[in-house]
């Protein structure tokens, strides 16, 4: 991803990555079929794909804007935190004690990953006295 966004725009990356996914569709269609699926399941799957595509764009944009891959990838891998919250609110699932621990660790880990020391800002952000 980072190697890609070093060369092309985030939006172009979304398109090329989607092509990479599409290449696998014929192989997957040999192993299964969509016949018999309910309209609800198909809709949920298609919406999931759309928001996945938007998430792809956001991670590429983050890398394009200077995020380190070693920070942005572990940070965005914390997305199950958001899923747990949505499932709690809309599906009325109740997180277990272990999941609460996971949520706490995710929040702490996310905050620590986002930490950039003030001494190392980008060149244009440095105060004038540092020139």
């Amino acid at each position, binding site marked *: 991803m980072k190697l890609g966004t070093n060369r092309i725009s985030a939006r172009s990356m979304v398109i090329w990555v989607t092509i990479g996914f599409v290449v696998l569709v014929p192989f997957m269609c040999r192993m299964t079929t969509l016949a018999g699926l309910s309209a609800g399941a198909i809709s949920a799957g298609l919406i999931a794909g759309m928001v996945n595509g938007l998430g792809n764009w956001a991670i590429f944009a983050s890398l394009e804007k200077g*995020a380190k891959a070693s920070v942005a990838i572990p940070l965005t891998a914390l997305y199950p935190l958001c899923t747990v919250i949505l499932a709690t609110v809309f599906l009325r699932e109740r997180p277990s004690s272990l999941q609460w621990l996971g949520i706490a660790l995710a929040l702490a880990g996310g905050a620590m990953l986002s930490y950039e020391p003030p001494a190392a800002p980008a060149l244009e952000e440095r105060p004038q006295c540092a020139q």
Partner: protein
Amino acid sequence: MQTEPRRFPVWLWYALLCVFWWGLWGFFSKIGSVSANPLQLQILFTFGMLPVAFGMLLQMRGRLDRNPGGAAFGILSGFFTGLGALGYFAALRQQDASVVTPVTGLFPLLTVVLAFIVLRERLNKVQMGGIVLALASIVILSI
């Protein structure tokens, strides 16, 4: 001496936006998985990504970046992510999800190692601690 207020980095906004979108992906996947198997879902995900890609192409007025390296890394990224998902489903046939999912959730560890070696990225101690906590939470949340 005047000190400038610390700005919230732009990349972090996008990263958090990504967490939101992928969180929604997990949510809708959960709903879809009630009646669709993981492979069927993967096909639907791919079809669902097409309108987003088409929208991006329209926004760019058809001017797709055709840098060979960038395009190749993009296609490989999509191909291997899809392949990784297929590997995950294959592993699920051999082992319980409670074992497979936490293990595959550790993929950021490989990214960190590759970024250290290939991209020569260096993290501060707080960020390294963050990676440890993040990996622990990924394992716990995927059990």
